[in-house]
């Protein structure tokens, strides 16, 4: 059993209106890795993520999750293994209460009602929102919604966590909470983000995309040191690696 490898082999995808979103993308991510997908808007990051759990099917090429190629027949298995957290938590929290949302996945999997409570409690505990169990989603703050959304996916016990912009729109405190969470997970993590400082903290490996292609694939240090590459892809190094915003000197944290 190939230990939950996520692999893409010359994956290409075009939307029905003809836009080529992915051009011959290939990579291989191993169990336990923490990988960031970065790129400008429209580079194809979200499209690629949606290929990973079968929401979209490739026009050509293949995606493999562990032993399975992602095909309509293997969708159930794939979705058991790959847990996806969406960019907008409102899209993901559609049940009347937080408890119901977290229980949704396990109930669909056929977990007995008696065991549901325990699983939900564990997921709530993992993200630190135990006190929110009875609340309806519309009464949660942005940060709470993001954490609950993560809990809904964790409750399904996936091996691979895929997250689309986990820190977008969060205030600094909530952002810090989410970063702590992400660092503590032992799952394989695939994250897209514009928050490159978070990426620098959480991810060891970075894949840079531009125009539907992979431009670079290496360790975080290598990629963030290559300012030319980043500029060519409409990106910048993380703020913590740039010059001080006040006095302009590099490598200074306070002046």
């Amino acid at each position: 059993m190939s230990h939950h490898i996520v692999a893409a082999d010359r994956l290409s995808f075009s939307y029905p209106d003809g836009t080529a979103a992915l051009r011959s993308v290939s990579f291989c991510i191993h169990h336990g890795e923490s990988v960031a997908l970065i790129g400008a808007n429209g580079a194809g990051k979200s499209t690629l993520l949606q290929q990973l759990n079968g929401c979209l099917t490739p026009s050509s090429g293949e995606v493999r999750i562990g032993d399975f190629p992602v095909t309509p027949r293997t969708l159930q298995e794939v979705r058991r293994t790959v847990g996806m957290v969406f960019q907008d938590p409102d899209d993901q929290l559609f049940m009347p209460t937080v408890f119901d949302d977290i229980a949704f996945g396990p109930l669909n999997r056929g977990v007995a009602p008696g065991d549901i409570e325990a699983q939900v409690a564990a997921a709530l505990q993992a993200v630190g929102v135990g006190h929110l169990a009875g609340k309806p989603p519309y009464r949660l703050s942005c940060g709470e919604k993001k954490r609950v959304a993560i809990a809904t996916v964790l409750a399904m016990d996936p091996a691979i966590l895929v997250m689309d912009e986990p820190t977008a729109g969060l205030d600094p405190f909530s952002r810090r909470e989410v970063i702590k969470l992400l660092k503590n997970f032992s799952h394989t993590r695939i994250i897209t983000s514009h928050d490159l400082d978070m990426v620098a903290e959480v991810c060891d490996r970075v894949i840079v995309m531009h125009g539907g292609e992979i431009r670079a694939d290496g360790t975080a240090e290598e990629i963030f040191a290559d300012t030319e590459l980043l500029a060519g892809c409409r990106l910048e190094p993380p703020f913590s690696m740039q010059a001080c915003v006040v006095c302009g000197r590099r490598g200074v944290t306070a002046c």
Partner: protein
Amino acid sequence: MLDFRQLDQLAVRDTRIHRLDARAKVLVVLIFIVTVVSFGRYELSAMVPFFLFPVAVVVLADLPAGFVARKVALVIPFAAAIGIFNPLFDREIQLYLGPFAVSGGWLSCASIVLRATLTVTAAVILVAVTGFTAVCEALERLGMPHPLAVQLLFMHRYLFVLADAAARASRARELRACGTRGMGMGPFASMAGHLLLKSWERAERIHMAMLARGFQGTFHLQRGSGFGLPELSFLVSWTALFMILRFTNIPLSIGHAVTAFFNAGRLMP
């Protein structure tokens, strides 16, 4: 919209009424409404004792009386607007209040307003002590079709999201309207079209989220609670009271007794 959230917030309090199974509360309110509405068109005094139910629930469930009264007060002008035609067409004198002759039309108008007040109060109270989702689930267990229950829950869930989006779009337009009053049909159609498409796309994303968590067509809404003795006694006692109030006219009896007393007093030397 704020009322929505406030009502839902009231529903999570913990009193004996709140802890009752939702089905009992839904049933009692339904019986209440049917009973009130079954009164004849000129009935007034016999309906007044029915206020006992909302008042009792407000007290027992610790609801903010002012809030409930304000919600209900909004309804009265509408009921009056409907009933106001009656006095114009029904002029036959039904009774005399001292020197005043009251026509049937005024009686039925007042009856309409009273009816409306009672039924709306009951509905508001129901949601305040039960919560919207619990009411839906209770209705489903009482026989409402499953697709409709799911529809109500989803709609309720996304109501706030979409209402906010609509409010933002509306406000944005207003800020660029430079004082012209009202939105024309053209801008409205365009705005509604945008809202519709965004909503449709959101629905598609929700669908993907559901699929990603293994959705295969059926919803599992699990709620514990059982229908036990407290619920049964709640249901039976209120129904009995409603039946008694429906078929007797206590205010009238009191009125008769009091006037008879005074008459008797006058007769005495």
